[in-house]
Structure formats: C-alpha cells, structure tokens
C-alpha cells in the first residue's frame, strides 16, 4: 500500500526541521515501549535536543511512510540530518562506541552505559499499555 502523500510530506518537513528526530511509541515523558524508552534514555544522556513523535496513533500509515523513505518499518527510528541512523540496537551500540555523540555533535558522557543502572536480574518491563 502506498504511503499517504500528505503524511509523507509532513514527515519530510519534520525531518528537515529537526536535526535529531525520533519516531517512538509513546512520548519522551511517557514511553510506551521498552525499546523507545532506551533510545530516549540515550538521547537524554547525550543532552541533545530532539524532536519526537508518538507513532501509536498512526502506526500503520507511518510504517508505510518510513518504509518508503528509509526502507524501515519498525519503531523506534532515530534520524539525524534527515537520515535514518537506526533503531534501539544500533543507537545503543553507536552510543557506547561514541559514534552517536560525534554524529549529533554532542559530548560523550563520562560513563556511557546504554542501559541505566537497575536492580540486577530485574526484567525490563514496558510501562502499562493504554487500550482503546
């Protein structure tokens, strides 16, 4: 199914306006997916300014858009300078190696750990989902 042209244009505008832009499930204040939460955690540690959009209300239409723009259909997706950098795995890997800080022009925090310290053995849980 082709992407909705208006939505695609809106997305292209957002990518043009925001050097760092995140498609995520939920909001930075209230992520609704563990992977989205981890990317937000990385961006917060970098102290970088970024735009974010919650994909949940428009999940399937946005999949079509990012599928066409970047050949990628799962979220989260982090874009820098309009280019898809990656999802959670890539973002964490590039954060730990310092590549992400370099890419966004931020200073690498002293102790770069992608996963914030937690009680050992505690399983990572998604926040409560809102249904309906």
């Amino acid at each position, binding site marked *: 199914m082709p992407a909705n042209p208006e939505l695609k244009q809106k997305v292209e505008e957002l990518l043009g306006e925001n050097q760092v832009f995140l498609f995520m499930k939920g909001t930075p204040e209230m992520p609704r997916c563990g992977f989205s939460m981890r990317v937000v955690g990385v961006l917060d540690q970098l102290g970088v300014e970024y735009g974010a959009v919650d994909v949940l209300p428009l999940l399937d239409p946005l999949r079509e858009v990012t599928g066409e723009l970047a050949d990628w259909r799962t979220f989260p997706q982090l874009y820098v300078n309009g280019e898809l950098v*990656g999802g959670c795995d890539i973002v964490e890997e590039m954060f730990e*190696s310092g590549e992400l800080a370099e890419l966004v022009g931020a200073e690498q925090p002293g102790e770069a750990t992608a996963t914030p310290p937690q009680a050992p053995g505690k399983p990572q849980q998604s926040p409560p989902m809102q249904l309906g």
Partner: protein
Amino acid sequence: MIESALPGAEVEVVDETGSGDHLRATVSATQFAGLTRIDQHRLVRAAVQPRMDDGSIHALSIKTRQPEAGG
C-alpha cells in the same frame, strides 16, 4: 538463511525466549565493509524477511560486525 544471503558470513543466533521466535543474531561479514550500520542491518533483515513475513520469527535483534575491522 543469513549465510546463504551473505556468503562467508559468520552467524550466531541466540533464541532469547526459548520459544524460537524471538532471536538475537550476531553477524560478521566482509560484505559489511563501508556500509553504515543501518545498511548492514538492512542486508541481514532482507535475508530473513521471508521468515518474518510468515511469522515464524516474531522478533529479531541484530548485531553486525566486520571481521577484520578493529573496534
């Protein structure tokens, strides 16, 4: 499947949940040279896409490496 798409690749797959459909794949391939990470992941994902489409793999987490690239 990944090996046939990326000849010579070293692939290690871990079944994260024991159910066989949440997998973590670490792939090391010379074909990754010069590619961004997202392009490396695109290659791996394309190789397993049929299994994603038919639902036999529900989630695949990918790590890519270049065999001789230090660090």
